[in-house]
């Protein structure tokens, strides 16, 4: 029972971070139909910028986090403006390749500036153990991670439902031409999508680094699980990323502990394929109606 609870909380925490990362991915896809393979690097750059701001420049941690998020936003904007805008209209695979190239370049820059060894960084959320029921002790930072992630996700959800810009984004995702006819500046929406992706990436990266206790290259490796999450939830559904994140996070933890490490890789992917065969567009994805 102890084990089950620990694993559940761990899985939820990882799932929450996955959901935030996947959120950025889904935002970009929904607005621009671009599949961003560099999302992991957004996590990485964001986390390292926060580390830098706090450790190297000595800024207090809330300011450091703001700096990190700001850098994420700038990065997203820069990529959209300088590179993706020139690729409008090209084949989807070419655009994917461009994002892969960007991912490689960003990894290289991070490697060059900060080196390969992870840095032991400050945790921005309280660490230490929290005593729950019986003799279940979990790391406090995981519970905080779930909390922070929930707040962010709700904020983004509200943004899409209530604010003008959020509604404009949904309009563009639905039908670009109709949105343009309505007077929505599609370019600006694209920029916003990338900026938001950069920002959520930075938050996800900081959370991950805080939990792991180190700012290192594993952060970008974590993002490889974003794809199963996104596919499971549906490429264009925000709710889907939350559900997908939780499912994948929990599945991985349970299988790692109750089975073996290898199963923790196979099981989520096998489950993914199984679910896809029943629901080809993910759990909450929009079913594509193809016309010939």
């Amino acid at each position: 029972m102890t084990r089950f609870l620990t694993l559940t909380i761990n899985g939820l925490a990882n799932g929450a971070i996955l959901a935030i990362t996947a959120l950025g991915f889904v935002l970009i896809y929904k607005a621009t139909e671009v599949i961003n393979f560099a999302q992991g690097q957004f996590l990485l750059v964001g986390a390292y910028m926060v580390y830098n701001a706090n450790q190297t420049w000595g800024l207090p941690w809330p300011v450091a986090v703001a700096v990190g998020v700001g850098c994420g936003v700038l990065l997203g904007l820069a990529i959209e403006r300088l590179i993706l805008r020139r690729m409008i209209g090209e084949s989807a695979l070419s655009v994917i390749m461009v994002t892969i190239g960007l991912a490689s370049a960003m990894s290289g820059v991070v490697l060059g500036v900060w080196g390969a060894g992870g840095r032991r960084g400050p945790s921005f959320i309280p660490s230490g153990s929290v005593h729950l029921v019986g003799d279940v002790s979990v790391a406090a930072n995981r519970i905080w991670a779930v909390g922070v992630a929930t707040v962010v996700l709700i904020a983004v959800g509200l943004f899409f439902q209530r604010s003008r810009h959020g509604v404009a984004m949904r309009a563009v995702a639905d039908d670009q031409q109709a949105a343009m006819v309505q007077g929505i500046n599609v370019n600006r929406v694209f920029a916003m999508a990338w900026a938001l992706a950069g920002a959520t990436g930075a938050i996800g990266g900081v959370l991950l680094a805080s939990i792991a206790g180190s700012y290192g290259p594993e952060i970008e490796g974590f993002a490889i699980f974003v794809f199963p999450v996104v596919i499971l939830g549906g490429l264009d559904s925000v709710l889907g990323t939350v559900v997908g994140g939780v499912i994948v996070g929990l599945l991985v933890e349970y299988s790692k502990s109750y089975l073996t490490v290898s199963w923790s890789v196979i099981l989520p992917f096998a489950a993914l394929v199984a679910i896809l065969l029943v629901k080809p567009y993910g759990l909450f994805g929009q079913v594509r109606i193809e016309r010939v």
Partner: protein
Amino acid sequence: MATATGVYHTTYRKDLALRHTRAEYVRLGLLAALAVWLPFNLNPYWLGYANLILLAAIAAVGLNILTGYTGLISLATAGFLGVGAYTAANLTTFYHWPMPVAVLVATLLAAAIGALFGLPALRLKGLYLAISTFAAQEILSDRFRDWKWLVRGHGTVTTSYPTIGGHPFKSTFEWYWLLLVITGLVVLAGINLFRTGLGRAFIAIRDQDIAAEVMGVPVGRYKVLAFSIACGLAGFSGALQAYYPTTQTVTWENYEIGRSFIFVAMIIVGGLGSISGAVYGAIFMTWVPAYITRIGQTLQRSSLHVLIEKLSAVQLTLFGLVLVGFLLVEPRGLARLWQRAKDYFRIWPFRY
């Protein structure tokens, strides 16, 4: 089309020919001459890379058939390289089968497993299918790591120099000729595929699979067949690599997802939907990182110490930037770039 004006085909035979004009035959001749001249004039270091390019081209051609011509994205190439490598290595090292037979069996096994992992293509499309191939890759790479019987507990399997028809293939030089012939045949087979009805069916599936179904193309069966062909070729490449002098030790670390991405990069940079593009892409993706490494090593002999410490970082960054830059210039890849170059000279001094 980059052929001369005034070329008219009067028979079906001429229409289907691989080369239509004298200029094209001359270019082909030059290429053949270059291929023959290379091994005598490259130092062994670069000849080794030429061999690696030829090996990679086999898998790249397969992948291009699947992704470029049939429109199904696959991220599992590295896994099938591994299937081929482990099968061939196991058969020769533990069961002492002759190398050509082992390679053949490895190819067929990879094709069969590829068909199995291609079954989701019957239901999934686009990125969803890509992720299911991602799943296949992770499953395969995980099995390589976990199944101890594949390596009989040693951690890796090592093969020795293959002997084909009594002649041992030990040196880079000998391997070059073997690989040149094999890759040449594979490329020829690939080009020929698209002169047949099956090839045209693949293209129809890529363009509009529902319409293709309506026209009578058995879409489901052909999609699985495309997977089979691509994975079989990847297995073939992997099996050959298991005998190649610098990669004689088969270890699971070589068959991970990163390598699959490199192959996808190969066909995109080379040009989707073009067999020669697959070869160009293989050249680009193998040679550029090697060249950057070479620059780094030359710099090491000078005193730019800072750069040397950060060499890996510089390599990674430079490589990513080259990729991005290249795609911004020509998103349709090297094949299209070559096409444009030929057109430019053909139409010169006119602009179009």
